[in-house]
Each structure stands twice: as C-alpha cells, then as structure tokens.
C-alpha cells in the first residue's frame, strides 16, 4: 500500500492548486492588457470618444485592411457607439429587471400560495439555465420579425432611412430578452435574502398591526438592501458580458441610437462590446485588428472586475447582523 499523504504535503499540494487559480486570473489580466495596449496607446482618450470620420464599423474595416508592415498599422478608433450600446442594453435590462425581480422575490417569499410557490422555484431555475443561444434563437426568429413587421411602421422606416435601416433587430428586443436572462439571478439572491430576515423583526411589526405588504416593504426589503445591491451588481456583470444573444438580436451595426429620436430610439439597432468581439472573431489573426478586439475585452474585464469588487463591498454590512448570503 502506498504511504498516505502527510498533513504538510496535503496542505502544500492543495494550496498550490488554489494558487494556480489565482495565477490564471493574473495571467488573464496580463495577457489581455498586453495584447490590447497598442490600441489604447495609439488612440489615447479618444478611444472612448465618438468615431472621427465615418462610423466605428468603417474604422474597424480600415484596421482590418491595414497594410502588413508593422509601422503602417492602422489603430484609429473611437469606440463610443459600442460603449453606448453596452450601456444602453445593460442599463435598460437592469432597470427593468430590478423592478420585476424585487416584486417577484416578494411574491415568492410572502404572497404566493403554496402550490404557486412550488412552481415558482423550478421556473426561476429553468429561466437561469436556458442557454443564451436559445434565447438568441427565439429572439432572432420570433421577436425580431415580429417587431420588424408589426411594430415598426413603414413611415417610421422611411423617416430614418437616411441614417439607419430599421429591420426589427433593435435595442428594444435586446433589452427585453436580456431582462429575462438576468431576472432569475436577481430573484434567487433576493428571495434568499428576504427569507433570511430575522423572524422576530417581521413578527414584531406584524404584532403592531402592520399589514403583510407593509411588513415586507418597510422591514424585509429594507433589511436586505445590501443583498439586493449585490444581486443587482451580479446581474449587471452578467448583462455586460452577454455576447451571443446580443450579437444575434441587437442588429450588429455600430450605431448609437439617439434618445432624441423619441419612440424610434427603441427600435434602432446597436452593437455592444461583447457582441462586437463575437462578430469579429474571425479577424483576430490580423494583428492590429486582433489588438483592437483585445482592447474591447480589456474594457469588459475592467468593468466586471470593479463590479465584483462592488458586489463584495455591498455584502459586507450583511455579515454584521448575521444574514450571510
């Protein structure tokens, strides 16, 4: 029989594996930023600004077609419309999603009759488990044609034809589907937090004659605010990074929808950062183009990193009164 491991050896081996995980993250940050650096250093802060001549897509094509000599590489880029697309879809989905999630979390914890509650748990788990490509498929084959044929009128299409074609791939569809994708994450965390509120607090309020809705709204929801923020942060990170579904339904056009357009604004196409990476993955072997794509990834990496940090910070107050999430 082989000699069993000593404690020291076990600790060292397991610790080494844990450090390997850390090293991977470090490697990821280093590699992505090293690859992305030329794009940032060449453009400076105008990287985040609007495209100077033409659209982002024109600039990306120019970068893709840049000459093969390293000293004549093109890097000129103003990625504002991609950033704007990311912000729009993420913010839209998070705002809409928070409202739905808070209400349905309260519903599951307090108001749903037991049979409905038994159905809700698997429903939430199912919505969280559906792969993004299936959401995208339903979006592109069902919702996009519907919006394109029935929601967008001919006059509206004509009115903006000189800047952009309205086909139904739009901010609206992207936001709606993204909302459905992030709601289950928020609901499960929020419901856990609401259940974790000490019973004596809610019972005390109920004993004072406060009705059930008031108890939930003024005691439970308030007490679990930190968990709600953590849930929102997680969902935001998920929405930022969603690539496949958005590349399928958001229109794949580097266009920044203008809020001044009124209703048309919601029907205009856009393309967030993550979707841009998927759409242009074939061009990664062209050196300056690949570096530009890695710059997009670097922006996403930094944003999600700060979101993780914010989520961790938001959870800290919970530990004070023993309501760990």
């Amino acid at each position, binding site marked *: 029989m082989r000699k*069993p491991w000593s*404690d020291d*050896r*076990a*600790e060292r*081996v*397991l*610790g080494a*594996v*844990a*450090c390997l*995980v*850390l090293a991977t*993250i470090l490697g*990821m940050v280093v*590699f*992505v930023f090293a690859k992305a650096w030329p794009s940032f250093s060449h453009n400076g802060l105008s990287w985040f600004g609007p495209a100077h001549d033409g659209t982002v897509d024109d600039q990306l094509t120019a970068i893709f077609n840049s000459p093969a000599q390293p000293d004549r590489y093109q890097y000129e880029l103003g990625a504002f419309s991609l950033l704007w697309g990311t912000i729009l879809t993420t913010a839209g989905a998070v705002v809409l999603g928070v*409202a739905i*999630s808070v209400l*349905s979390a*309260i*519903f599951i914890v307090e*108001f*749903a009759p037991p049979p*409905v509650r038994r*159905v*809700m748990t*698997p*429903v939430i788990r*199912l919505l969280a*488990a*559906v*792969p*993004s*490509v*299936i959401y*995208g*498929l*339903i979006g592109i084959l069902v919702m996009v044609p519907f919006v394109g044929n029935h929601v967008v009128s001919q006059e509206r299409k004509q009115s903006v034809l000189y800047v952009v074609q309205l086909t139904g791939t739009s901010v609206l569809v992207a936001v709606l589907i993204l909302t459905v994708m992030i709601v289950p994450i928020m609901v499960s965390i929020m419901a856990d937090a609401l*259940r974790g509120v000490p019973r004596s607090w809610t019972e005390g309020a109920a004993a004072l004659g406060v*009705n*059930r*809705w*008031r108890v939930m709204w003024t005691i439970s929801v308030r007490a679990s605010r930190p968990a709600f923020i953590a849930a929102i942060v*997680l969902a935001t*990170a998920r929405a*930022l*990074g969603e690539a*496949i579904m958005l*590349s*399928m339904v958001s229109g794949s056009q580097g266009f920044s929808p203008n809020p001044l357009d009124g209703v048309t604004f919601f029907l205009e196409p856009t393309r967030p950062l993550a979707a841009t*990476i*998927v759409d242009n993955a074939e061009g990664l072997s062209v050196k300056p183009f690949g570096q530009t794509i*890695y710059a997009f*990834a670097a922006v*996403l*990496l930094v944003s*999600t*990193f700060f979101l*993780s940090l914010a989520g961790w910070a938001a959870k800290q107050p919970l530990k004070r009164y023993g309501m760990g999430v």
Partner: protein
Amino acid sequence: MATAAPTRRVESSSSWRLTDRIGLGLCWAAGLLLCLIAAGIVGYMAYRGLQYLRPHLLWERPLSDSDQSKSGGFFDPLVGTVALTVIGTAIALPVGVSTAVWLVEFGRPSWLARLVESGVEVIAGTPDIVLAIFGLVLFQQQIFALLSFQAEGNAVFGRSFLTAGTMLGLVALPFIVGSTREALQTIPRHVREASLALGKTRAATIRRVLLPAARPGIATGTVLGMGRIVGDTAIVVILLGATLQLQRVGGPPLIGDVRGTGSTLTSYVYNNSPAGEGNASEKAYAAAFVLLLVVIGLNLVAGRLGRRKVSWTS
C-alpha cells in the same frame, strides 16, 4: 428553511390601503409573468422541436449544403458537446474540490485565502467571451503547441477540444468551489474532532471523512457546472474552431481527436440561425430543442442531488 406554520390564517387584503393593494397586485403580476415566460419558452421550443426533430438527425453527420434536406444531422455536434463536457468537468472537478478543501480546512495564510476566494468570484463574474479570447492568446503560446494544431511556420492554432475544454473548466469552477465549500462548512466541528481523536491525520480525515460527507454538495455543484458548460456558446464559437465536422489532427487515435476541432450543439444552433452562415432555422430549432432537453435534464439531476443532504445529529 422552515416555511409558515400550516394553520396560519391569512388576512384579507380588502382592508388595505389602495397603494398596498396595488403593490400586492404588481407582485402577482411579476410572479405570473415569469411563469408565463418560462412556459412560453419551453412550449415554443417543444412545438418547433417536435415539428423539425427527426430521429435520423441524431446520428447523421452534418454536411455543408444550402439545401436544408441535404445538410445532414447533428451527430458531430452531439459528440462535441459530450466531449467538451467530459474534458471541462475532468479539469474543473479536481481543481475546484482542492481549492475548496484548502479554503475551508487550511486557508493559511489568511490573506492568501481571501485572495483566492475573491479570485474565484472574479472568474465567476468574467464574461465568457473574455475567457474565450484570453484562452486564444494563452494557448497560441509555443509551450501549449501540444494541446492544439501547429501550422507551418510554427504558428500555434490554439483552437481545439483541449483548449476549449480547459476554458470551459474555468466556467464550471466557481460552481464546484462554491457548493463544495458550502458542504464542507455545514459539517459540524465534532465530526472532525472525532476523527482526529482516533489518531487520523488531517489529510486522512479530509479523504476518509470530510470528502465522502460532502459528496452530495460536490455532485450538485458539478452537475450545475456541467449545465453551464453544455450551454456555453461564446467559448465554443471562438476556441473550438467551429468546424462543422470533427476534424482530427494527426497522432494517436484519441489524442488526435481531442487536439482537433469540431462543433457543439450550441455552436451548431448559432451557425444555423440567421446570425450565422448556415441560415437553416429548421435544423437550429431541432438542435436547440435537444440542447434544452439536456440542460433541463442536468438541472433536474442537480435538484434531486441537492435535496439529498446528510443530516448531522449532535
């Protein structure tokens, strides 16, 4: 979590103020909306899937043809999904369990433990598309040439089952670490103390007592992680080369296959949707239905496993 006592009397909401009643109504609306959406998705996918899914699609190899009746089935994507899940789990399981055991049972120095903990959270928050292109630049380094195909001029291709599986392992890792940790933390102190008092070393305690006790938790996390691997698209599209059929690289049988490229159900659906080149929505619906069944099945298994908790009496 103990729910309300069965004999609880529910007060009527008719005496509430209007604003409170509106709030109650909105709660019902939100909850039912989610149920409707879920039913709609499953119902629609089942309707379309049963309409287009034919048994022969499951064992015919895909062919590139613009005519949908000649473009074959999705045997290769199915094999690809299974292969990637196996590779990803085989990487994530040992790494995840070791990390969790180290965090709970050792965790010294504590700053390093905290760093590892937040590192796992960072991985969980990183978009899979970023993981995908990080994997590409990582595995195109010369030292990883063995994992994929090497073209003339020494350029490493970087796309293969092994590289995609490794990155998918990272996707599954946070689930395994999380549930293993939770399972270990619920094991009461006196169980460890009893084992140590019998003269077992800590290493033996972990192996003989703690890991067997944590097995249901580990299994739940693993199955959840597998569900994520099966459903992931971005990493597959970028790191698996997205060739329709399995393309093997020269070498011994099995090794040549996993160094090669291929496709999975997710990339098959993506490529056959209007967003990809194939534009064969019937095939996309059929494959998406199979994919949905697999994912739902994995979740049912995870739910079943999660319920089987070891109860500790003190």
